[in-house]
């Protein structure tokens, strides 16, 4: 690759990459999630059986990842909207990104116990 021609953006580009990756991941999850919920039309047992897999420690970790993806996409989505519609949005896009990241870190720390607590109890005993 010729030196110096690869575009490496800064916060703006990386937040766009993260927004795109999280958006695609959420879409694929949603597809599967509608399918598993549709089992309520098959039988209560069929539904409860798949939901049981959602309660295992490994899937709990995936749920934590899903919360992480959705929270970032939602918060950064609001930032994108602010950049587009607020007259000072473009000037403060960087500050807004670090605000998004800050809120995200706080919410992710707060989600640790509610989302992963049951898995920790199962793994390490209560």
């Amino acid at each position: 690759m010729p030196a110096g021609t690869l575009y490496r953006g800064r916060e703006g580009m990386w937040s766009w990459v993260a927004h795109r990756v999280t958006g695609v991941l959420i879409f694929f999850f949603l597809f599967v999630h509608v399918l598993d919920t549709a089992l309520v039309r098959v039988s209560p047992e069929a539904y409860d059986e798949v939901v049981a897999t959602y309660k295992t420690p490994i899937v709990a970790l995936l749920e934590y990842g899903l919360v992480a993806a959705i929270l970032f996409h939602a918060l950064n989505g609001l930032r994108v909207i602010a950049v587009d519609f607020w007259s000072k949005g473009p000037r403060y896009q960087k500050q807004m990104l670090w605000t998004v990241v800050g809120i995200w870190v706080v919410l992710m720390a707060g989600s640790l116990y509610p989302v992963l607590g049951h898995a920790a109890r199962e793994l390490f005993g209560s």
Partner: protein
Amino acid sequence: MSADTTSAIGPVEGASFDVDNPAPYIEAPRKRTGRTPRATRGNFEMAAWLFMRLSGVVLVVLVLGHLLIQLFLDGGVSKIGFAFVAGRWASPFWQVWDLLMLWLAMLHGCNGLRTVINDYAERANTRLWLKGLLYTATVFTILLGTLVIFTFDPNIR
């Protein structure tokens, strides 16, 4: 052509133009003529852009509320089961909530993926097939989810 010419225009391929012999008229490139369709393009992309932002704002409430109820409150994921679903869908409020969330999230995600496909799939045929798959999956998921919400039966067994 001699140096004492009065025209500011230089020689053009052997032809020389003056008041009595004017250069042919060239039409402005984007001028509308009788043959131009009334609208040369629609506003679809702008509507899609706007929809991403409007649906995004609504989805913040619907999706984060959904996560809070399903994964955080009352024991988190542990409480979820057929009985819990039956309890929530007994109320038209949560039926409408879930229906709106399903439609908006699927259409928002579908349009988002359309953008991604347009960005990365370089061959026209690849784009066609990927978008065909995307639209099929989207229509299927929206119809299935809608059907499940409207036909849910708590006494199914």
